[in-house]
């Protein structure tokens, strides 16, 4: 048994998942802060694909790329 290598893998798993969560948590915070700062300034808002039409259009566009 190459226990060394397996241990190294375990470390990498813990550090890896940890970093993924730390990074994405930081991104959540950064996006939230950014959105609030932007929200204060009056800007031309654009709907975020909330309608069914837009859902269809976006999916179609991505699908077209992946499926063709």
């Amino acid at each position, binding site marked *: 048994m190459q226990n060394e290598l397996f241990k190294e*893998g375990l470390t990498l798993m813990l550090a890896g998942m940890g970093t993924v969560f730390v990074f994405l948590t930081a991104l959540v915070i*950064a996006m939230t802060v950014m959105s609030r700062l932007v929200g204060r300034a009056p800007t031309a808002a654009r709907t975020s694909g909330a309608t069914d039409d837009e859902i269809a259009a976006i*999916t179609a566009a991505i699908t077209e790329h992946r499926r063709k």
Partner: protein
Amino acid sequence: MELVTEIWRGSGLYQITGGQAIMLVVCLGLLYLGIAKKFEPLLLVTIGFGGLLSNIPGVEIATGDGLLYLLYTAGVTNGVFPLLIFMGVGALTDFGPLLANPRTLFLGAAAQFGIFATLLGALGLTSLGWADFSLRDAAAIGIIGGADGPTAIYVAGRLAPDLLGAIAIAAYSYMALVPLIQPPIMKALTSEEERKIEMVQLREVSKTERILFPLVLLLLVAMLLPSAAPLLGMLAFGNLMRECGVVERLSDTAQNALINIVTIFLGLAVGSRLQADLFLDTNTLFILALGIVAFGIGTASGVLMGKLMNRMSSNPINPLIGAAGVSAVPMAARVANKVGLDANPHNVLLMHAMGPNVAGVIGSAVAAGIMIMFTS
């Protein structure tokens, strides 16, 4: 007479090895899946045909100064082709749903557990003496669980070029099989009530937020995890061209001519790794087996994180959208939508699932960065 002998000796029938014959059949199988079953055809058709070309005996196509070998060295070993594809994906992707609900990034994070569990699995096989994967090999195999083709090819090109063919095939095949792999796991881990949960409509996202998002992403990568910067940087660049509104001609080209050209070249180049003597190996079988485990674990951890978030959150979250966190854009989001509709015909989850879906792309690029940093 001598000449006839020479022609006969130059023929494929004379020179072909058993391995090449098997690989020709395998590649025809990939073409069948791509064309008749429409499984990720952009890549399975190009990789499959590249594989056919690469198993023709007695001619330099995937070796020497053959076209496929030139393409492989020009764009795969150095990561150029996957990075350009990532730029195109950035130009094609709408991050609006993620901006409207940033918390879904956690779902994209959880689903990356499939990557690391698989890495551990590969090392476990080695510890048991069944396989002989190095840490770098295991990292490259794990990334199959990221369910993102260019990321897998990028990492494999860097860490384990010998396994690139098998890893790419596994990644694209399982991405195509998401509608078969995911639903049983999703149903097993959720109750009928959870699957019926309807989510609140997403808020509006302003143009400024859309423009700033790629820059915020890039700066965060730069500060926290530079080794993920090539992948996420090109994704952010493509998305900035898309959203900034002043370089439409470049954005159009990145989304069309350029990504198409690179896809053709990348597919052929990856196909060149399907040469019999590189591909036919017990390693390949282990990689295919580990890959499907990776998808399963990723799906499960995404769903479980969805359940956890639903309990902790004031706004209801349907745990099904967690399964979309593996990426496999947009297939996984559509699967989540479909399973949700089965439970509740008024439950349109598609847009909500797009958030974790694109979060999964970011998540696996982050995981790729960690792998590369840790093993270089």
